[in-house]
């Protein structure tokens, strides 16, 4: 490691140097300067890569982050235009197989119940997430101990709590303090966004039913906060926030990380991890947009490429000594894929709910049925998030409104019933880890640089089916109590895999996990995984908060252990 990193000196850069670095961060293939030997190379500029890079450079490390995509182009966001709803399915599409940008790689998903959704670019999938912000609940870390299934995490809620607090302050999260579904002390820097008429109706119903609900917590600014502006409730969070109110790491982390000396190389697709004869990693190989190959050397390599990209990279880094892929002595790389099957239940109301306008993340949420209750016939549970339904075009789609034909004579009546008169409970189900659900390399399909594409094999289990049957019934009761005259249970759809988890399991036992409790691979002492791949179980909440808190905790440990870190000679 560099002297500065070993001494823990902070790096200060001049404005002139900052500008140079920032320009270079956008050029990709022209990048050459000063970075041939980094202390740390980070693969992926999404939430975990951004947190890692920012805190490492703050501590004086020389960090290069390689990102296959580009900076987001908010000029292509259409929230204020007539074609907003029409345009959703392409430039800001969630499914890379649909989006097909130069930065995207194909995913073979013909044999999966749920398709993988992601954003390949600076900001990663914080560009397309709904912004619903959560911590995992304490029980999520103790699934084996409490419910007798799957595995406990090698850390507790209490250990992670200070890191939640730090990332929440850094990121910008709005919400209502002291939800009793969490241990005391869960407070926010910004007040909750308005819950709207939908929130009023449902909260009143839950109060009557004696069921838990809480105002939505969202990574959305409700007042000026660092680089964010207050939300104006345009409900476009999924498709490019033109109002700079949504906390995504291209806005919240990267500008400051670059200011402090991080070098971010865009258009850099990492193809494999380079292992030396001493069984330590030398860095990574990548291809730039001109097709030129590079070796980015570094003392330490951190992979932060999501639950599909990370196992893909490890599996593609096989060598004669590691024929099953790197860091895979446990055989678990790529296995235990969890994607949070998602359900939607829609209530139709006589009174206007203005269901196209507001915060798109979540107006409110409920943990009433989150924990295991044996009599229900399944283990674990789901979080419900109360959501808008969208504009008029959305009311004509089969999801979430069902397959009933509306075209022809019924068209106008159905649109009138649905548009501006809906409320949606989104149900995020905890799926249990199964080794049969996995990411492998496709034998034929390749990306534009010739790297094997990932193939997904994922099927839900009977536990998930029973969970949905129970939860959709309860959600129907909730909306009926709120005054809905009709409730529709949305049909299952495949395009809901926003949360990609579990494919490089974290644990203490090297025979039963890929990384240890600090994200370090058991097999390679200077190779780390800091993204959601490491989750032993999936919890049943939106994962970005925990992904970022874990990345921060791991980074803190990497910094504090800098003098004990094995690095190549």
């Amino acid at each position, binding site marked *: 490691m560099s002297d500065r990193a070993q001494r823990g000196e902070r790096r200060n850069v001049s404005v002139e140097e900052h500008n140079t670095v920032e320009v270079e961060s956008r050029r990709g293939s022209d990048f050459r300067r000063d970075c041939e030997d980094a202390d740390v190379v980070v693969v992926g500029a999404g939430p975990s890569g951004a947190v890692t890079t920012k805190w490492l450079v703050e501590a004086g490390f020389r960090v290069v982050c390689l990102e296959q995509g580009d900076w987001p182009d908010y000029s292509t966001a259409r929230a204020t235009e*007539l074609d907003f709803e029409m345009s959703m399915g392409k430039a800001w599409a969630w499914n890379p197989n649909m989006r097909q940008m130069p930065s995207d790689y194909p995913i073979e998903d013909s044999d999966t119940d749920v398709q993988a959704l992601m954003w390949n670019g600076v900001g990663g999938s914080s560009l397309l997430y709904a912004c619903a912000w959560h911590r995992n609940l304490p029980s999520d870390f103790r699934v084996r101990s409490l419910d007798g299934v799957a595995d406990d995490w090698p850390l507790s809620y209490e250990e992670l709590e200070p890191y939640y607090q730090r990332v929440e302050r850094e990121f910008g999260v709005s919400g209502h303090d002291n939800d009793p579904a969490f241990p005391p002390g869960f407070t926010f820097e910004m007040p909750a966004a308005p819950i709207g008429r939908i929130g009023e109706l449902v909260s009143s119903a839950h109060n009557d039913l004696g069921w838990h*609900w809480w*105002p939505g917590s969202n990574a959305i600014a409700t007042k000026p906060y660092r680089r964010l502006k207050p939300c104006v409730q345009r409900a476009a969070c999924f498709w490019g926030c033109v109002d700079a109110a949504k906390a995504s790491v291209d806005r919240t982390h990267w500008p400051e990380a670059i200011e402090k000396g991080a070098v971010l190389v865009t258009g850099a697709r990492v193809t494999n991890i380079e292992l030396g004869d001493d069984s330590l990693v030398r860095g990574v190989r990548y291809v730039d947009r001109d097709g030129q190959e590079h070796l980015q050397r570094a003392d330490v390599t951190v992979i932060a490429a999501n639950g599909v990209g990370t196992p893909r990279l490890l599996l593609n880094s096989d060598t004669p000594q590691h024929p099953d892929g790197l860091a895979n002595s446990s055989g678990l790389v790529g296995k235990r894929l969890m994607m949070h099957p998602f359900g939607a239940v829609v209530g139709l109301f006589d009174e206007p709910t203005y269901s196209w306008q507001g915060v798109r993340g979540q107006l409110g949420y409920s943990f009433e049925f989150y924990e295991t209750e044996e009599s229900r016939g399944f283990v674990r549970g789901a979080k419900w998030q109360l959501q808008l339904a969208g*504009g*008029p075009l959305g009311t004509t789609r089969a999801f979430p409104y069902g397959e009933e034909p509306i075209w022809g004579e019924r068209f106008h009546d159905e649109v009138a019933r649905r548009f501006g008169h809906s409320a949606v409970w989104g149900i995020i189900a905890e799926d249990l880890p199964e080794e049969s659900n996995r990411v492998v390399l496709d034998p034929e399909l390749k990306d534009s640089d010739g790297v094997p594409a990932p193939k997904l094999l994922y099927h839900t289990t009977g536990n998930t089916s029973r969970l949905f049957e129970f939860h959709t019934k309860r959600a129907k009761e909730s909306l009926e109590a709120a005054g809905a005259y009709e409730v529709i249970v949305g049909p299952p759809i495949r395009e809901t895999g926003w949360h990609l988890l579990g494919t490089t399991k974290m644990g203490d036992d090297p025979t039963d996990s890929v990384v240890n409790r600090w994200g370090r691979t058991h097999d390679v002492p200077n190779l780390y995984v800091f993204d959601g791949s490491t989750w032993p179980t999936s919890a049943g909440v939106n994962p970005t908060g925990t992904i970022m808190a874990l990345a921060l905790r791991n980074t803190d440990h990497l910094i504090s252990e800098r003098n004990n870190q094995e690095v190549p000679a």
Partner: protein
Amino acid sequence: MSMSAPHDPASLDSEAREALNRLADLLIPPHEKMPSASEADADGVWVDRALQARPDLIEPFNALLRELQNEPPEQAIRRLDKEDPERFALLTEIVAGAYFMNPKVRDLLGYPGQRAIPVHDMTEELDELVAPVMARGPIYRPTSD
């Protein structure tokens, strides 16, 4: 009723456009105050505008419409709905998408688009609303040692 806007460059060939003209009102007929698809020019200028937003759909949409052009329109829609739901969804998504882009239609529907509405601090009201939840006390399962 005149609901036209200046024409953008065409995105459908003449055969495809003719087919669309015959199909559009079967999907969105006139109803009370609401215009049909053709009255709203959804099969004219607005389909061009819709396809500008989704240039990747121009070719498959042209191909679909050309395929349907020689079939009686009612039969074509019934068959497509039954036999090829994915392409039926392509047809309906573009026709309805074009229809709802027309500002007059949006006015009649009461849809002003995604406006900017500043947020306000609801903390005090929310404190009252969550009071029953708070009164029931903690619901998490403690795990601390």
